[in-house]
């Protein structure tokens, strides 16, 4: 029993509504990520769960137990919520050794020293810091301090692990490695985890489910694939990497293999897109196109199956990205980015078709 439930939680800072009407369930053993741009309320939500922040509305339950109830102004203090937390700046004690850092939460809980030793060794082994017990915490590298912070957060076996952008201070290569480790550590411990990040890729790799936040609200909750493939709102589509937005009018509607689809018509183009239920013919619509759902076609080539729409344009730029190339194409209605494998097979100035498959274009 260690699921976390938030019920209509709200938090104001002066006139700013940092968190508004957030209801969310983090299932037992689940890795759930709050994903959103900075200032979207994700860190505040995490801090509310931790008990570091008092909220004005709603209730929070951890493991079936009410831990805060804004209506009664009742808040269980953080140390009694059985949560472990990893901070963005790691917050390791600079004046203590690695061992003392991890032992600290146990010692302030008056655990017998023999058990402290056993637990610390266990936690340090889990994060791969064995053998560094006597090092001063400040003599560790950034990645090691990160591990130390994780070891300290899990050493007293909390019910819930809270992580606030823990990887954002690491360099790109280290971050990649830590993602893998963090994920396998969480699986091994089976600990309910709430993770906060603004890094879309990180969230997708790590999470069982994502909650996309913006303006203090949760826009969509779902598995990474669901959220990515079926964004529920334009904000989600835009945040998850839609690079081109077009305006048009809905002309027709049909039932696709995977939900409703609509045909949107703009000046000089028409496209079938995924849509939400309420989008009826005659309505104005915005079409969101993502770089990874597009292909390039020379005039006369046969289009791939499942084509949703096409736009005629001129290649303006080639951006080499290693394994793939981003081709920037200017069409009459807007600019598209198309990610294709290297070599791109086109050069600057070429005229091409940009073809989108109907399950990668979204109309709202």
């Amino acid at each position, binding site marked *: 029993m260690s699921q976390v439930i938030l019920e209509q939680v709200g938090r104001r800072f002066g006139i700013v509504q940092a968190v508004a009407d957030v209801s969310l369930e983090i299932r037992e053993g689940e890795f759930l990520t709050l994903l959103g741009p900075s200032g979207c309320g994700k860190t505040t939500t995490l801090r509310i769960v931790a008990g*570091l922040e008092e909220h004005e509305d709603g209730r929070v339950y951890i493991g079936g137990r009410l831990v805060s109830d804004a209506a009664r102004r009742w808040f269980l203090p953080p140390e009694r919520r059985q949560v472990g937390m990893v901070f963005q700046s790691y917050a390791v*004690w*600079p004046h203590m050794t690695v061992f003392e850092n991890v032992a600290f939460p146990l010692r302030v809980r008056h655990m017998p020293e023999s058990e402290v030793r056993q637990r610390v060794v266990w936690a340090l082994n889990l994060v791969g810091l064995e053998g560094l017990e006597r090092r001063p915490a400040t003599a560790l590298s950034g990645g090691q301090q990160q591990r130390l912070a994780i070891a300290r957060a899990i050493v007293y076996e909390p019910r819930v692990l809270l992580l606030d952008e823990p990887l954002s201070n690491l360099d790109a290569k280290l971050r990649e490695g830590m993602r893998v480790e963090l994920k396998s550590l969480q699986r091994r411990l089976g600990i309910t985890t709430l993770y906060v990040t603004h890094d879309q890729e990180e969230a997708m790799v790590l999470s069982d489910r994502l909650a996309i936040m913006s303006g203090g609200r949760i826009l969509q909750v779902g598995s990474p694939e669901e959220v990515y493939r079926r964004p529920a709102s334009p904000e989600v589509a835009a945040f998850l990497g839609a690079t081109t937005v077009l305006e048009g009018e809905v002309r027709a509607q049909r039932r696709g293999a995977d939900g409703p689809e609509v045909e949107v018509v703009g000046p000089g183009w028409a496209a079938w897109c995924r849509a939400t239920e309420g989008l009826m013919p005659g309505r104005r619509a915005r079409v969101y196109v993502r770089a990874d759902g597009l292909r390039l076609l020379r005039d006369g080539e046969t289009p791939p199956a499942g084509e949703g729409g096409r736009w005629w344009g001129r290649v303006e730029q080639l951006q080499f990205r290693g394994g793939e190339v981003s081709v920037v194409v200017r069409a009459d209605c807007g600019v598209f980015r198309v990610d294709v494998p290297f070599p791109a097979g086109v050069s600057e100035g070429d005229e091409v078709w940009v073809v989108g498959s109907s399950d990668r274009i979204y109309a709202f």
Partner: protein
Amino acid sequence: MTVGRQAWKHVPLAAAALWFAGPLAWVALTSLKPAGDILAVPPRIWFRPTLEWYAALWNPQAFLGDLRGYLANSLVIALASSGWATAAGLTCGFALSRLRFPGRGALAWGLLLLRMLPPVATAVPLFVLLRAVGAVDTHVGLGAVYAAVNLPFLVWLLKGFLDEVPRELDEAAWIDGCPRWLYLTRVLLPLTAPGIAACAGYSFLVSWNEFSLALLLTARRAATAPVYVLNFITDQGVQWGPLAAAATVLTVPAALFVVLADRHLRRGLFGGAFKG
């Protein structure tokens, strides 16, 4: 060319050093001069140095008693007042730095205003107060007054040191289940130890050097070394030799402290990034 420019920068610095250190050197030299050379005009740079004035300070047969008793008074009072002021300043600074309560800002600025009071304005009331509780001419009385005088500044100084410790450390301790007093003693105290030591040293020095309150609030038993120095200004003239010797002895702890604590003191006074 660059060397020349650098050298020019040192001219005002050298002038300032001369301005401040000159009188100190003068006093130190005077304390070593034989009686005939002290008031010689023009002043003598070359003379046969003597320790007779220092020896006189240590002479228990002297009319006023020797310097040692007064030095002991100074030491006891400065240590006690510095200890009290630092302990109180630390808890006040912690409250101002970490706790949220109504009137917090007003309180902090009020403390600074207290510091602006001219000392003379408080001297007489302090005397009346100490007399009422029977603490005139006692170590405890003068020590308490010094602690009170130093406290506002120390609170601000210590608040500054505590402010440099990142808030996330507080929260991490909170989640770890660390009670507040334990956090203060086990985490904040060790992290800010150099700053706290500098504050204690500063407050010690202020008390060590203080003269006018000591003159007013003590007579004989608890009189401090600066008061003793005054005795060399007599109705038969100023005894420059012993006066200079006593002044030199009194300067030594101050000089030592500034050399040792210089870096920490500057960080506390002028702020700076927290280094873990």
